[in-house]
């Protein structure tokens, strides 16, 4: 059990920017405990019984939605899937109406995926329940960054001073934004490797090193993190051709051989095999891509647990059986109650 000081309680998960290192560590520690449930014959605990989580997905997503779905169900929450795609109303209004509907239905938390950056923050204006950002535009994808940290921590331990190379389409990547902030929070050193056309304009404000030669960087890395080439967002000619991209930036087995023997290869999925990663690298034992997916469930369970387990604490007038209701520092006393006995 952690003896560290109590982290600030989470109220939402909108952006990695809102978190401090202690909170991130608390999420990862919680996920580590919850991961054990996946190994059981009955993969379910009653913790969030009676809570309703709404998955509001306004953009296509398979693994993130399923992962949140499984995470909520393993904690016994009720899940409703609300697809708000293809509305003719302008996005702002439709989001507001959707939020008001969800409010009227009495959901306890909303997991939101949107192609518009800032949609989760906007949702928060209309809904006073915890909001979890499952990816918004080019902005943030916090649970992806957290599950990646979790995966890295499993393999490398403490991330302070570790070298993480993020290779690929940084410009269109909300994963890259969240990833860089999360890694910096944990003291890792990040180097971005990308063609200049696929780097965001004010990249110098990110506080990371930028390189353009993959082969030169590889031997220094503890983690090689490959971003998906977002072909659906490539309206303009960011790269000459996919074949050219694979040759210059893609990781195949000869590039894999340049990594340190203990370095790991990660990818947020879905992969373009043969473009940013070759099939044999994706299937090699250095790639931890399926682990990332499995860890995603544990990390999302941790986020839901931390955001929702006490959600009724202030809202509900519970039937208190304490002869001596805890006064001020309720959470400290609760912790005592859990640790001291009984």
């Amino acid at each position, binding site marked *: 059990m952690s003896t560290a000081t109590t982290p600030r309680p989470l109220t939402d998960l909108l952006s990695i920017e809102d978190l401090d290192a202690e909170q991130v560590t608390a999420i990862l520690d919680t996920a580590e*405990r919850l991961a*054990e449930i996946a190994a059981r014959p009955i993969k379910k605990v009653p913790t969030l019984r009676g809570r309703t989580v709404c998955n509001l997905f306004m953009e296509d997503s398979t693994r993130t939605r399923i992962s949140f779905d499984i995470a909520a169900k393993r904690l016994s929450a009720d899940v409703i899937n609300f697809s708000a795609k293809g509305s003719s109303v302008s996005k702002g209004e439709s989001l507001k109406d959707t939020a008001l509907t969800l409010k009227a239905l009495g959901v306890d938390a909303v997991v939101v995926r949107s192609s518009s950056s800032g949609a989760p923050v906007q949702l928060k204006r209309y809904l006073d329940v915890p909001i979890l950002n499952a990816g918004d535009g080019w902005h943030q994808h916090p649970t992806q960054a957290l599950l990646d940290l979790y995966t890295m921590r499993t393999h490398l331990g403490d991330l302070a001073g570790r070298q993480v190379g993020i290779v690929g389409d940084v410009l269109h990547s909300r994963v890259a934004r969240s990833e860089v902030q999360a890694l910096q929070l944990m003291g890792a050193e990040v180097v971005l490797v990308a063609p200049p056309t696929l780097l965001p304009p004010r990249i110098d404000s990110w506080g990371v090193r930028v390189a353009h030669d993959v082969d030169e960087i590889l031997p220094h890395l503890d983690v090689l993190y490959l971003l998906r080439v977002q072909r659906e967002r490539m309206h303009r000619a960011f790269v000459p051709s996919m074949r050219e991209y694979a040759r210059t930036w893609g990781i195949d087995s000869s590039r894999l051989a340049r990594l340190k023997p203990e370095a790991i290869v990660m990818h947020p999925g879905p992969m373009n095999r043969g473009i940013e990663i070759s099939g044999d690298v994706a299937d090699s034992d250095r790639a931890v891509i399926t682990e990332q997916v499995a860890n995603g469930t544990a990390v999302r369970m941790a986020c839901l647990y931390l955001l929702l387990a006490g959600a009724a604490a202030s809202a509900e007038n*519970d039937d208190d059986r*304490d*002869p*001596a209701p805890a006064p001020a520092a309720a959470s400290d006393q609760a912790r005592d*109650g*859990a640790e001291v*006995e009984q």
Partner: protein
Amino acid sequence: MTQLLSDADVARILRRIAHELIEANKGAENLVLLGIQTRGVPLAHRLATVIGEIEGVEVPAGAVDVTLHRDDLAKRGALPLGRTDIPVDVDGRVVVLVDDVLFTGRTVRAAMEAVLEVGRPSAIRLAVLVDRGHRELPVRADHVGKNLPTARADRISVRVAEVDGEDAVVAENGGNGQAPDVHSEAGSGQGADTGEEGA
């Protein structure tokens, strides 16, 4: 602050409970000892060692964290999770839950639920170092180190060497600001932290 049990008392109690468990179970075969986080865990491991020495067998011991099964989580907020470590398949085995203090019984209920989720033991038994009364659920311990009748608002603090650096059971100030009369059933104080068990 009054010391109710010394480290020597605790050691003697654990030896006695170890013998009781062996007797009740007709040997140590098939036993698995699961300590309830936090202080039940070292006690379970110590009991397993003592039983192992007496019977000449290895007795598996592990840990159960009840946080996810507490009935008061909504009230308490998201508490930090402890490790659940069940070292063997519990199916068909006798699971002995071990805790430091038995109070309202809610923690034990939660622990039973947690164990039953991972398998179907042939039986679940309960061994506690201290039973201080004030049950809120129909729970009774099979093996009790010491019965300490207390006031509801009293605080009984069990210290174990692995966590607190020493073995001892002490009574801290009750709600009335005085050391509790451990022989009095009648509760007096209100308004202090009772070490309330919730689960």
